[in-house]
C-alpha cells in the first residue's frame, strides 16, 4: 500500500472507491447506486467549477468564519517546557467546531442537484446543528437523525435544530446512538433519494461522502498553511500536527495540505475511554478487525459475529465504532501515527489548557489531542513545533466536565 505524492489524498482511491485497494468503497444497497453515481458526477463537476468554488469560499468566509485563528500557546509552552505549542482554533468556526464546512458544502451541492430536502446524521448534535443552520440559510427542508439516547442527553442541541426548522428524528434501534442514527439516515435516503440529498457528518460512509467531507474540511489546512508561513517564514523543519480522530473529518482537513511534507509528523488521537475499560472507540489504535460499516470498508470495533460493539468515551464526538478509510489508509502506509488518550487524560488536558490559555477551551474531543501534546512536548526540543487542532469548543461539554470534576451544576 503506497501513498502517492502530488495527488490529493481524497483522489488516491481506485475505480471502485478503495484507498490502498482496500479501505472505503460503496458497499451499499443497489437502491443507492444511482444517487451515489449522480452525486459523484456532480461533485467532480462542482469541484472544478469556479462559480461553485467562489460560492463555497464566500460562505466559508462569511458564515463559517474563515480563517480561524492560528496562535501560539505561550503559557502552555512555558508550562511544559519543551516543544513550542501552537493551536489552530477551529472551534471558532460557526457552531463551535469544524462540522460547519461539510454542512455548508453539502447544502450548496443539494441546491445544485436541484433538491430541496436534505437529511443528515448526528451524534452529540454538532453535525446536525450545523446542517440545520445551513439548511435554514439555504432554504432547504431538513431532517436530522439522532439516536434516541442522544436526543435525551443532548436535548439543548435538539432544541436548537428544531428552532432552525429541522425535523429531528429519534432513532430507537440498537444502541440508540450515533451508529444507529447513521444507519437510519441511510435507510431514509434509500427511500427518498429521488427528492432528497444526504449529508454524512464525517469522513465515513460511501466513498463520495468521504471525499466531499474531507474536501470541505481541507479548508482548515489550506488557511493554516498561509498562517504557518506568516508565522515562521517557511515550513518548519520539525513540525507535528496532532488531531483527535472520531470519524476523522477534522484530522483529514487539518492534515490535507501537509501530507506530502515527509518531515511533518501527523499524529491522530483516538478515544481510549475510561481507564480500565475495554470499550474503546479507538479502532486504529486497537488494531480492531476490518469490516464493513455504513457502506465502507474500515477498521471497526466489532465482535466475532460482525456485530458492532458498543464503545465508551467521555467525548460524544469520538464515540464511533468505525473510522474513516482515509485514516485506515494513512495508518497502513505509515504516513500517520495513531494513538489514544483516556477519558481521564483528556479531562486533565482540558483543565491544563483552559487554565493556562483562557481563550482556548477545547471540547472533550480536541482535549484528547492536547493530552498527547502534553505527553510528548516536555521531551522535545524548542525547535519542534507542535500544532494541535482545537476543533471544538468546550461549551457543549460543560455539563459533563463539571460533573466529572465534581462541580454542582
Amino acid at each position, binding site marked *: 500500500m503506497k501513498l502517492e505524492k502530488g495527488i490529493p489524498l481524497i483522489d488516491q482511491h481506485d475505480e*471502485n472507491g478503495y484507498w490502498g485497494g482496500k479501505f472505503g*468503497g*460503496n*458497499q*451499499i*444497497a*443497489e*437502491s443507492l*447506486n*444511482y*444517487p451515489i453515481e449522480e452525486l459523484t458526477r456532480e461533485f467532480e463537476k462542482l469541484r472544478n467549477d469556479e462559480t461553485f468554488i467562489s460560492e463555497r469560499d464566500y460562505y466559508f468566509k462569511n458564515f463559517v468564519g474563515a480563517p480561524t485563528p492560528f496562535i501560539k500557546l505561550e503559557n502552555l509552552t512555558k508550562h511544559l517546557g519543551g516543544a513550542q505549542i501552537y493551536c489552530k482554533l477551529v472551534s471558532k468556526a460557526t457552531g463551535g467546531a469544524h462540522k460547519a464546512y461539510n454542512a455548508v458544502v453539502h447544502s450548496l451541492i443539494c441546491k445544485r442537484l436541484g433538491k430541496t430536502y436534505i437529511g443528515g446524521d448526528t451524534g452529540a448534535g454538532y453535525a446536525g446543528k450545523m446542517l440545520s443552520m445551513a439548511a435554514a440559510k439555504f432554504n432547504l427542508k431538513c431532517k436530522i437523525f439522532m439516536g434516541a439516547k442522544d436526543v435525551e442527553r443532548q436535548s439543548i442541541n435538539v432544541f436548537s435544530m428544531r428552532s432552525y426548522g429541522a425535523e429531528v428524528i429519534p432513532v430507537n*434501534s*440498537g444502541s440508540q446512538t450515533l*451508529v*444507529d442514527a447513521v*444507519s437510519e439516515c*441511510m*435507510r431514509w435516503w*434509500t*427511500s*427518498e*433519494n*429521488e427528492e432528497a440529498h444526504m449529508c454524512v457528518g464525517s469522513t465515513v460512509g460511501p466513498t463520495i461522502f468521504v471525499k466531499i467531507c474531507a474536501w470541505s474540511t481541507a479548508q482548515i489546512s489550506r488557511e493554516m498553511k498561509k498562517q504557518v508561513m506568516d508565522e515562521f517564514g517557511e515550513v518548519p523543519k520539525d513540525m507535528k500536527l496532532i488531531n483527535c480522530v472520531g470519524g476523522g473529518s477534522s484530522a483529514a482537513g487539518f492534515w490535507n495540505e501537509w501530507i506530502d511534507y515527509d518531515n511533518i509528523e501527523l499524529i491522530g488521537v483516538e478515544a481510549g475511554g475510561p481507564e480500565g475499560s475495554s470499550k474503546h472507540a479507538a479502532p486504529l489504535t486497537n488494531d480492531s*478487525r*476490518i*469490516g*464493513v*460499516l*455504513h*457502506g465502507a470498508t474500515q477498521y*471497526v470495533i*466489532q465482535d*466475532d*459475529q*460482525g*456485530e*458492532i460493539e458498543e464503545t465508551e468515551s467521555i467525548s460524544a464526538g469520538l464515540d464511533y465504532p468505525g473510522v474513516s478509510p482515509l485514516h485506515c489508509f494513512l495508518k497502513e502506509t505509515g504516513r500517520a501515527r495513531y494513538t489514544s488518550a483516556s477519558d481521564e487524560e483528556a479531562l486533565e488536558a482540558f483543565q491544563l489548557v483552559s487554565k493556562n490559555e483562557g481563550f482556548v477551551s477545547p471540547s472533550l474531543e480536541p482535549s484528547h489531542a492536547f493530552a498527547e501534546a502534553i505527553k510528548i512536548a516536555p521531551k522535545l526540543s524548542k525547535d519542534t513545533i507542535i500544532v494541535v487542532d482545537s476543533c471544538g469548543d468546550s461549551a457543549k461539554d460543560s455539563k459533563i466536565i463539571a460533573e466529572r470534576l465534581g462541580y454542582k451544576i
Partner: protein
Amino acid sequence: MTSSTLIKSFERAKEDNRAALLTYTVGGDPDKKTSLNIFKSIADSGVDIIECGLGHGANIGDGGAIQDSTYRALSNGIKTNDIFEIIEEFKKDYETDVIIMTYQNKIMAYGEDDFLKRCISSKVSGIICVDWPWPLNLDFAKKCKENSIVFIQLLCPTTNEDRLKSILNDAHEVVYYISMLSTTGQKLKVSSDEIKKRFNLIKKISPHKKCIIGFGITADTINDFKDTDACVVGSALCREITRSIDEELNPATNVGNMVSDLKQKLSS
C-alpha cells in the same frame, strides 16, 4: 447441486401457473427452536422458497418490522452458527429451498470461505447480500457458483439500462428486483403495473433468469404478481411474529396461517 433445486422450485410454480412464493423471516427470531418451528410451519403451508435473514445490527436496508426481528434474535444471543444449525435441522426434514439474506460484514466476520463451506454443509441454496453491490461482489459470486450456490444479484428501479444489462450478464440463474426505492416493509409506493413493466424489461433482456420481486408486497397486492416469476413477503410476516410474541400466541402457527393465505391468493 443445490442451485439446480432452486431453479426447480421456480419451475414447479410456473407449472402451477403462478409465481413462486418466497417468505422472509429472520433466522433465530426469537430463538433457535421457535425459529425452526416457524420455518417448518411456513414450509408446511406451501411456501416455495424460504429466505432466511442472517440479521445484522448495523444494517442499512431493513425497515422497522425486520429490525425488530433482528434485534430480538441478536439480543437473544443468536450467532451466525445458530442460523446454519437451524437451516441444517430444517433441511433434514424438508426439501424446501433456503436462501440466506444478509449483510457483507456478517460474511466477512465469518470468513468468506468458511461461510460458503457452512452454506454447503447446511444445504443453503442461495445468498442475497444487501450491501454488496455489483460489480464489487463478482469475486464472491464466482466462489458461490463454484460451490453451486446461487448468488442473487439485486436490481432496482433506478438501475439504469446499461447497468441492468451488465448485471444480468454477470448474474446467476436468479436475480432479485427491488420493487421500489425504500427499505423493506414500507407501503408499496409504485403501482403493480409499473413494477411489472420493469420485470418484463428484465425478462426481455434475460428470458431465462428467474426474477424475484420484493419490497412492499402484502396479502393485499400479491395477486397482482401471480404472473411473474416469484415474489417475497417479509415484513408482514415479521410483524406477525412480533404480534404473536407480544400476545403470547404461537408464532409458528400464525405465520403458517398467513403463508397459506398468501399462497392461496397467489394461486387464485
